[in-house]
């Protein structure tokens, strides 16, 4: 089953791609700026096309081109962070989406699992900088840097002494599980943190007193984590199993083997 993803930094699309590749399904990322939709379809003959709602909101030509295309299964990733745009699309071209499969955020277990506590990676607060710095996140991190043992890794460099450079995903996972509290921005890794039993706090609504309590009391951390719903059955493997019946056995076997490791 050949899956084509419209080139994106969407954490969901990347999660689906990583999970599909983990069960040895070919995935290709396509850049609409360099090749037209019809050329791509003619050349690659995809079985599945995955786009994000951001693409549909910003690229009307793409939305139009895909409207009558029914030779492949069409999947849209529902990004929680851009709900407003989503409602806009729904109003503008609801008929475009009627035959689309919608995917909700899930845990990217193919990439973020099996982290182990490493001496030297331990921190009070951890942030994975996988998107460019914004004033909101910089303000939060600067405040944390003054009070707590903060560690940051990721592909996007931040002007803080606590930023330790780029790291491969297994190292990022080790950093994740070695922290007390993770800062999450725009809900990008909320499911990954929950799957790995790490307390994450959204940067947008960070309360200094709450953060202090979470860092200083392990009981309070555990209490807060218990409030969250279990996400053990909300992974992209489960999503794949639901959407593609032909892959359900292999996807569920994969998640079972990951859980047993």
């Amino acid at each position, binding site marked *: 089953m050949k899956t084509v993803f419209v080139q994106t930094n969407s954490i969901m699309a990347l999660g689906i791609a990583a999970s599909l590749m983990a069960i040895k399904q070919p995935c290709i990322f396509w850049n609409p700026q360099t090749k037209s939709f019809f050329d791509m379809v003619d050349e690659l003959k995809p079985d599945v096309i995955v786009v994000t709602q951001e693409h549909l909101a910003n690229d009307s030509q793409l939305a139009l081109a895909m409207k009558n295309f029914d030779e492949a299964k069409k999947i849209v990733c529902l990004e929680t962070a851009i709900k407003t745009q989503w409602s806009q699309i729904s109003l503008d071209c609801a008929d475009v989406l009627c035959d689309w499969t919608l995917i909700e955020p899930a845990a990217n277990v193919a990439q973020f699992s099996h982290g182990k506590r490493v001496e*030297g990676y331990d921190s009070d607060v951890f942030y994975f900088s996988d998107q460019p710095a914004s004033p909101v996140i910089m303000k939060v991190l600067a405040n944390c840097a003054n009070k707590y*043992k903060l*560690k940051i*890794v990721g592909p996007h*460099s931040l*002007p*803080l*002494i*606590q*930023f*330790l*450079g*780029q*790291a*491969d995903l297994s*190292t990022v996972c080790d950093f994740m599980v070695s922290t007390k509290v993770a800062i999450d921005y725009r809900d990008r890794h909320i499911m990954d943190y929950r799957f790995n039993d790490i307390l994450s706090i959204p940067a947008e609504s960070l309360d200094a007193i709450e953060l202090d309590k979470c860092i200083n009391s392990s009981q309070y951390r555990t209490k807060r984590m218990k409030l969250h719903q279990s996400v053990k059955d909300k992974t992209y493997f489960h999503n794949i199993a639901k959407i593609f019946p032909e892959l359900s056995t292999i996807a569920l076997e994969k998640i079972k083997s990951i859980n047993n490791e």
Partner: protein
Amino acid sequence: MNRPSSGILLQSVGRSDLAIEACQSLNNLTDTNPYLDIIIFYRSWTLLPMPIRFSIMMDAECWGVSKTLISTDIKTTQTLIKCVGPQKKYFYVWDLEWLERTRDMYYGDLAHIYNNPNIELIARNEQHYNILHQMWKKPLCIMKDFDSQVLGDICS
């Protein structure tokens, strides 16, 4: 041939704060203890910042150091890691360089330098000491601007 007992690795011996402090400190040490054998190994040659009363050599010769070798930045630490001669290796963290180098270096590369089990870190001041302890590992000591007394203790 007698091998030099200790050395300091510098990028350049030009007019930088680092080179000036290092030369001044070694001049002081040579005055107080003429038997102390410390050499500055440089990578690129420029005019010396002051008259010196100790030896300097190119960094290609640093393999000959038998006792203590001190690097002063990431690049010279990369040389230090490969150097098999010295018994003790130190990285004098003059500047918190990883802030600038994270664009071209991965965490693994930086950890190989700052968390290297064969290399002890030396902090420049108390603030650096705390940062290094928090982000990497606990430095051995604080040596303020190449304090000649601390340097003498490390190299003796």
